[in-house]
């Protein structure tokens, strides 16, 4: 009997792309060095998510080279960094579009048409959830509860901006608007906008 056939040790895990050589820009390095002081000196690992956000912001997604750089910064092993990256949903290990449309699919949004929003986006952009369109402009992602259930259905754009109350029938116009005006097309978070007396959104009643 063959002791260790070739298939025996084959892991289903896909390794992250090696990518080009990576180092923080001086600006990001300065940000990281300032941030890491929030934690005790022997607990640099606490800054790992921050470092990964910086790296992802710098090149759009996380490559093996980026993870190695983060590992050096944190003073841990690259495997520990990959362990963290693979757990959290807000990190990408493949290139994504300029606008990542994260459609909330959980109950409160779904009750008000989130599934239809995803279907419409899928039809308008010609891609399925998880895919990026050929021009590299849009990536469509279904995500779980974003915590804005009173403004359903909600879409988070990239990891920073929100668009609230996106009804299925508004999807086509929304996409056109986003193409034409960029992030100016987004409603933003109703709470975040400066509220004039009596105007704007309602925070709580």
């Amino acid at each position, binding site marked *: 009997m063959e002791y260790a056939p070739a298939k025996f040790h084959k892991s289903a895990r896909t390794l992250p792309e090696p990518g080009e050589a990576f180092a923080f820009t001086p600006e990001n390095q300065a940000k990281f060095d300032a941030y890491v002081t929030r934690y005790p000196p022997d607990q640099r*690992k606490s800054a790992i998510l921050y470092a990964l956000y910086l790296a992802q912001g710098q090149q759009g997604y996380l490559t093996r080279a980026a993870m190695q750089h983060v590992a050096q910064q944190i003073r841990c092993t690259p495997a520990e960094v990959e362990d963290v990256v693979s757990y959290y949903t807000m990190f990408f290990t493949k290139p994504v579009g300029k606008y990542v449309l994260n459609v909330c699919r*959980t*109950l409160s949004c779904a009750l008000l048409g989130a599934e239809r929003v*995803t279907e419409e986006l899928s039809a308008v952009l010609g891609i399925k959830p998880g895919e990026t369109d050929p021009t590299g402009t849009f990536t469509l992602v279904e995500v779980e509860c974003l915590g804005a*259930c009173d*403004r359903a259905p909600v879409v988070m754009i990239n990891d920073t901006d929100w668009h609230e109350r996106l009804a299925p029938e508004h999807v086509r116009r929304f996409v056109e608007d986003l193409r034409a005006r960029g992030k100016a097309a987004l409603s933003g978070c109703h709470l975040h906008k400066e*509220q004039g007396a009596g105007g704007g959104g309602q925070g*709580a*009643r």
Partner: protein
Amino acid sequence: MAYERVLTKHVNEPHSYTLDFYLTQQRGYEALRKALTLDPNDIIEQVKASGLRGRGGAGFPTGLKWQFVLKDTPKPKYICCNADESEPGTFKDHVLMERNPHLLIEGCAVACYAIGAKVAYIYIRGEFYHVQQVLEAEIENAYKAGYLGKNIFGSGFDCDVYVHRGAGAYEAGEETALIESLEGKRAQPRIKPPFPAVAGLYQRPTAVNNVETLCNVPLIVLYGSEWFAGLGPEKNGGPKLFCISGHVKQPGVYEASMHTTLRELVFDYAGGMIDDRPLKAIIPGGSSVPLLLPDQLDTPASFDAVQKAGSLLGSAGLIVMNDSVCMVWLAMNLLHFYRHESCGKCTPCREGTDWLFKLLGRLEAGEGRQKDLDLLYRVSNNIVGKTLCAFGDAAATPVISTMKLFRQEYEAHVREGRCPLPAPWRASRPLFAGAH
């Protein structure tokens, strides 16, 4: 409805988030000034006497939690504020942090003083980037004004408050998973004991408190524990934020006392049902709690009364559903959530949520078999009570609860070989695969 709001009274006013506004309109930082003249143990006693119960979901008495924090130790101690608000149907901490951030900052400082900590970390979910921007700016303003930092009010008390951004993980809302995530690891729960009060962040004594809980602390110090307890029913005192979403006319965050009934919340506060359709069921405390039926709406929305009615107040996220909602679909929607969010540490939860989702998906697609119904029960019961954290119980709840209350709908799916209630707001074809 004669209740006067205290947590969110001003949140709709412009500049409500600024330090100036907080100082002039909300007696800002007076509670901290007063607290620093008291013995820390007296503050813990006050919080205990107020009956403040944790607003994150479990409803555990906050004063007791603080009392358990190890006292005689040379180790540093920590306050971790749980701002990972991710329970489906919950969006209250969002408002507090964005429109009344100084109340939270002051609450963190008072809590630190009470347990003998010098540092508080606010663990905010990654999706709340815009909230984080407001919070960090206001923390900086608090430092500049001397409400944080070294030797606050000349008392010799030092306090730092930092924001820590998560990156998309529901499980990070579990207190030990939150600590793991703060330490730079996967957000997976720890085996308890030891509890965080003994060995928490960096294995040091730690109290983990929800945003709304900490926001109540300055109010208790300022207005007294009797005032606080008097706002609600016995053992359910204080103001409470209710998040109402789903098929209601005016979804939103509403502040009320826990005397308020679920019916008042749905029909008076949230304006009733969209198009005045009949109410079929509500989830009173975020997706992890059992459903309640229309004939239970006169239950007061307090921790104890909702529990007596057979559910839990949890995070007070009320999800209201009209008669167009198929209960098998509902369970499938939530199991998609739990399957995606299961951290994978405990086998019953990791495997069980996947099994449940697939079984429910099969029923929804019209391919369910009679024996699947028993299988759903069996798989659920193999998760409940067999995991390290409460996630497992929560994940099985939508299945157990809908099967108990709406068994006939499950039977109908098998009998008719299709979903008998395909609502127009749902996808035209069942959506299966998640994106991740």
